[in-house]
């Protein structure tokens, strides 16, 4: 049996459902190319802001327990102008590159969307969900249905690209937030960003370890929470979902797709399995499909919602 792994995502065709999540590695075109060679179906850039940002002091990323990491990168990135240069020519890029954008308000988001037009991004992801950067995401009040609607609408007006809205697992009424995004013109939901934030205190010095003291939680332990979020969102909206959070194995990906995801984002998994995780997860998905008599990965999407 030949197993089909390609999926469709808001008009994009992905050779397989694995996507490099935003913030991991995505600093340059060249490193994203390496991730593409490692088997990803699509890649996401680090989030781009209008102005360059150095981000928080180090440590910006630590392991809080065996299965959790905390990060408070603080959206370090060289800014819109540098991003346009970095990604100016994506014509030879083998898979879709998703441009992650983050602003402080609807206006800034819209400005970014309008100004990245020259870049060959195949989709835009707007991030309304960071739990650890003042002025942005949850700390900017972006987690509510109202703010989501406002920002998504503003961006929608400025771009024809497929528009993904990235949500936070902290919000309880996630279905409503997703609905607000859908109504405002989003083409897909990315769920979820990091959780929390959390904190680790060094007991020798009684000091929080992260430079920003608190950071968003990612890694294997995030999976059960992300799973519920995707499950809830699938019930609430018709647009496709990219399930992100603790995906490490093909089995995790299968579970996430059964919850309702059309594709899965992988971030912290790169720590546990290296860059080859994309290829390995695909192989494992394929094995699962084969041994369970599915000919096509699309057949498992949302399966957990059947009675």
């Amino acid at each position: 049996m030949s197993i089909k792994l390609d999926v469709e995502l808001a008009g994009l065709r992905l050779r397989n459902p694995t996507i490099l999540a935003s913030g991991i590695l995505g600093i340059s075109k060249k490193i994203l190319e390496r991730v593409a060679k490692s088997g990803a179906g699509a890649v996401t850039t680090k989030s781009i802001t209008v102005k360059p940002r150095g981000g928080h002091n180090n440590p910006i990323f630590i392991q809080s327990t065996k299965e959790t990491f905390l990060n408070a990168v603080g959206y370090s990135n060289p800014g819109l102008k540098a991003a346009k240069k970095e990604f100016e020519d994506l014509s030879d890029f083998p898979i879709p590159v998703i441009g992650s954008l983050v602003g402080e308000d609807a206006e800034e988001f819209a400005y970014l969307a309008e100004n990245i037009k020259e870049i060959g991004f195949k989709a835009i992801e707007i991030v309304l969900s960071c739990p650890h950067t003042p002025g942005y995401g949850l700390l900017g009040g972006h987690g509510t249905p109202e703010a989501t609607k406002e920002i998504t609408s503003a961006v929608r007006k400025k771009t024809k690209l497929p528009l993904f809205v990235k949500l936070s697992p902290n919000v309880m009424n996630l279905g409503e937030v997703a609905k607000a995004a859908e109504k405002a013109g989003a083409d897909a939901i990315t769920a979820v960003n990091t959780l929390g934030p959390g904190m680790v205190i060094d007991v020798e010095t009684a000091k929080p370890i992260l430079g920003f003291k608190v950071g968003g939680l990612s890694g294997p332990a995030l999976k059960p929470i992300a799973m519920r979020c995707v499950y809830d969102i699938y019930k609430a909206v018709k647009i496709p979902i990219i399930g992100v959070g603790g995906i490490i194995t093909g089995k995790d990906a299968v579970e996430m797709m059964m919850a309702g995801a059309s594709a899965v984002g992988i971030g912290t998994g790169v720590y546990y399995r290296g860059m080859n995780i994309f290829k390995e997860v695909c192989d494992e998905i394929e094995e699962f499909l084969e041994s369970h008599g599915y000919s096509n990965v699309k057949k498992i999407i949302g399966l957990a919602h059947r009675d």
Partner: protein
Amino acid sequence: MEIPEVLEIKSVIKENYKTKTFFFNKKIEAEPGQFLMVWIPGIDEKPFAVSFENPLGITVGRVGSFTTQLLKMKKGDKLGIRGPYGNGFKLKGKEICLVAGGRGIIPLAFLAEKFKKVDITAIVGANTKDDLFFVKRLKKYCFRIIVVTDDGSSGIKGFPTDSLKDLLEKEKFDCVYTCGPEIMMKKVFDICENYNTECQASLERYMKCGFGLCGQCCIDDIRICKDGPVFNSKQLSKLTEFGVFERDKSGKKVYF
């Protein structure tokens, strides 16, 4: 676990007017070239090469605000250590040459200690006499040391790269190991290529996570922290950004 282990400073040795070695009450095993992330609790965290492994020691040169604060630390103060990270220099053959520029001598002195069984020639470059350190340490393990200063205040006046060229005109080495300013390392590599000599260089880029996830330290499609920091000739020859630009804390390109 990727989290700093907080250790007490057991002793501090002044190497020169702007350089100190800090020893901790701990043994580690490391390859020369591997590095640690060193956390000043509540302040910041930056990369430093393993300088000694038993007891663990790091050697710090003053550059900017972090190193200035680090150099103020005293016996009994506490620092967080993660690592060792990255790969290390690999021993190749029986006659090797080290080319150190400035604080590039730190991992190379540790290398000499680890590889002491082979014939080592060391070229040690510094701006001026006062900037030199670890020359005595190197003497224990090297059969020949060539000191080079920009101003001639100690040893030969000139650049370490000139000395390397002179040597390679007359002799063959199985491998040249280099660490120092990237422009110097690039020249060392070019000279080695010219003389058909294998080279290993330890590169530096702005580092944050140290374990290959954040992407901050990339050069081309390589993560210095995880795939490096040490690269051999074959790898170096593929790097289009080597000697051209690095990235700052935001990821912005800064040309050399």
